[in-house]
């Protein structure tokens, strides 16, 4: 199929960017979206232009590196997947596809479609851990039974890949689904209880400091999340936060 691509081009964080139109031809419907971008880039390199910079790595939907806002949605129109798992059969011959970087003040553009997600890192530094030494002298793993339900729920929260689609989809650029997932994972497990108060207070404080917006419960994050992280995690974080504040 032949496609028109409208892509955000921006030289670096200090430059102004703009949408630029490109044409690609003979795209197979079996290609992944990023392979289509590879075709475009090969074409650009061969014609002496600079290829479009975009983040990607594992290309199997788990590393959370790929981003891209495609036709007005984070990771494109399909559900439960990342951009690297989006396939061209979702599009039709002659389509125009708009491709933009994830937008949020806390995710400044580095170049073209690449954004800086260090703000997520700093939130994790603020409390995304259990303070246990890595000496190997911890108690036996089975000394602390954990109910299967709690373990499974914690696993569902821990499935977050930190891609930032929640922030990108949110009209308020709120990071609450991301932070809520991490807070929930530890809040659901007995190991996480000891530092539960400091963790939620510190992570939320850092989240606010980074300039993410306020959650208004539109639920867009849950729908666009490639790993299906539930809004229940935000509610749980709210509870944990109130408990810790009182």
């Amino acid at each position: 199929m032949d496609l028109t691509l409208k892509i955000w081009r921006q030289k670096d964080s200090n430059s102004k960017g703009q949408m630029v139109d490109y044409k690609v031809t003979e795209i197979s419907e079996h290609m992944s979206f990023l392979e289509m971008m590879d075709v475009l880039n090969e074409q650009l390199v061969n014609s002496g232009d600079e290829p479009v910079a975009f983040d990607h790595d594992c290309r199997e939907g788990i590393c959370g590196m790929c981003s891209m806002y495609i036709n007005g949605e984070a990771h494109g129109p399909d559900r439960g997947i990342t951009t690297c798992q989006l396939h061209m059969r979702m599009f039709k011959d002659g389509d125009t596809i708009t491709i933009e970087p994830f937008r949020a003040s806390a995710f400044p553009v580095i170049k073209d479609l690449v954004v800086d997600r260090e703000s997520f890192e700093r939130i994790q530094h603020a409390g995304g851990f259990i303070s246990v030494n890595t000496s190997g002298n911890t108690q036996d793993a089975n000394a602390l039974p954990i109910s299967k339900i709690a373990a499974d729920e914690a696993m569902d929260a821990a499935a977050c890949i930190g891609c930032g689609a929640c922030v990108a989809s949110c009209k308020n650029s709120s990071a609450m689904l991301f932070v809520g997932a991490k807070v929930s994972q530890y809040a659901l497990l007995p190991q996480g209880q000891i530092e539960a108060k400091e963790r939620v207070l510190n992570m939320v404080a850092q989240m606010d400091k980074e300039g993410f917006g306020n959650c208004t419960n539109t639920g867009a994050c849950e729908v666009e999340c490639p790993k299906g992280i539930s809004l229940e995690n935000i509610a749980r974080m709210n509870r944990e936060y109130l408990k810790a504040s009182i």
Partner: protein
Amino acid sequence: MATLDSKVPKGPIKDKWTTYKDKINLVNPANKRNIDIIVVGTGLAGGSACATLAEQGYNVKAFAYQDSPRRAHSIAAQGGINAAKNYQGDGDSNYRLFYDTVKGGDYRSREANVYRLAEVSGNIIDQCVAQGVPFARDYGGLLDNRSFGGVLVSRTFYAKGQTGQQLLLGAYSAMNRQIARGKITMYNRHEMLDVVKVDGKARGIIARDLITGKIERHSAHAVVIATGGYGNVYFLSTNAMGSNATAAWKIHKKGAFFANPCFTQIHPTCIPRSGDYQSKLTLMSESLRNDGRIWVPKNMDDVMAIREGRKKPTELTEDERDYYLERRYPAFGNLVPRDVASRAAKERCDAGYGINATGEAVYLDFKAAINRYGTEQALLHGDTNPSAAKIIELGEQVIEAKYGNLFQMYEKIVDENPYKTPMMIYPVTHYTMGGVWVDYNLMTTVDGLYCIGEANFSDHGANRLGASALMQGLADGYFVLPYTIGDYLANEIRTGEIPTDTKEFDAVEKEVQDRIDFFINNKGTKSVDHFHKRLGKVMWDKVGMARNEKHLKEAIAEIKEIRAEFWKDVKVPGNANEMNTELEKAGRVADFLELGELFALDALNRNESCGGHFREESVELDGPQKGEALRNDTDYKYVAAWEFKGEPSEAVLHKEELEFNDIELKTRSYK
């Protein structure tokens, strides 16, 4: 010149590690504060090493090319992690795990290292649970296990189908704790481009800031390389797009020996290639072979009919199908080890029976399993005479519960429903057992330069068992390196801070800068990917699943040619002082073009078939094993460690003879 001293401690294998730790040199806590360690790569091995080293008090500088340590490709491991906990009471023990790993590796790994790995495996699980890793549990609240290929016990711990992700996030959280304390300085989006040696000791690295393009100097008292494997030398693999061998290859060129590069694991169950545009291949977990039956059509007419779309695979009767694994290996059937399954698929496809347009795919069929489970479920529901439709419905539910996420992933990629029509699979490069040679301390042949995780060679021999990679990465990082590195650093407490304004740093930085300038100014006509794809094709066709002398010699010559052309005609657009993904790729492919040649040279040298390395010249000529791989313990029971001498093909071979005192060498048989 460095020589090979594996430094394996004396004494019975069960006591080696404990006794060694008791006598090892230590650095006192006050002195650790004055010692810097650079860790390159922050996957399971690097990330866990950073966390423990920082916790012990060292100042750690960590480097990752992604924007966060959480994105390292360890994250993609699906199945699980082995540990000899014997929670299931099925007779597991450290010795049994050790035995399985050495045997699975076809007796080409170092006994003492593997035993140590088995010994600390239990600690890994304790540690990860304490960190909040949500392993699967049973209804009693205790940890659950499953069984993996090649072993007789259930020792694999798992977190859904995302064990690698959860373990990496655990190590990442341990790092975060130390980053918050200021003990780890994290350099995200930085790529190490060379190592700096001062007086024969590794003293720092030259790195490029991938956002600004700035070349930076970083010094330390020791350097740890944890940058993973080199599977991307094949262009197509299950590795991440950015996975590269640059750090490992650069230290090789600066004096670290490279061991057994030809030991590469080709994983049998990947989604096949569908066209030339393909950038990477996706793995379907090995666990699928528990329920799937692998086949190709018996008759060439059916093959052609399926390829041309005139016939559907479901229309073939049982008589028209060739379940070749069950035919050739009646004892293990579809559950033969990875290397055997991969070669068998290749054999059928080479004979022309591949069932897709590229001729490189076989079927993995769940119909029998669906029927079996369906009948069983119907009985459980009290239905003694279920309809065919009911059986299929119930059977599909069981399959969905077991493999639902994999089936969904397959459907997203291939656009076919694997419940209704068999999956197509084909072998793909997955893991590299070979790597930088290290001694018992995990130190390379360069003083103060360490190598851990997939990047080193030591634990998996010629073939890695499922769920062992995660175990090795975390064992090296959390529990081995942080102790053994103290033995070296104990002599560094008086060194003081290492300056970076020295002639040694000047010289290496100039090398790095010159190479970057060359790429930017070369203005050739062909893209980096063009060369990478050509290299990949040579590697796959001639240094792939089955190798012979003629092809290997051709491969060496062809890789040389491609490399010469690359340096003449490669085209890198853009500038050096900005984010430039083509420039990054150019540096990595330049190194793959050298590594590929050494890879072929090593494969040529090793005229035996063992594990993932299959030489067509070395097969059983008669008897029940006729046609199967023939290992040659008389001539090749050694680690081939190569020393760089200016050109990959001029590398000098050093042999580390392998001793097996606690295990008997046997021929693997799966008939």
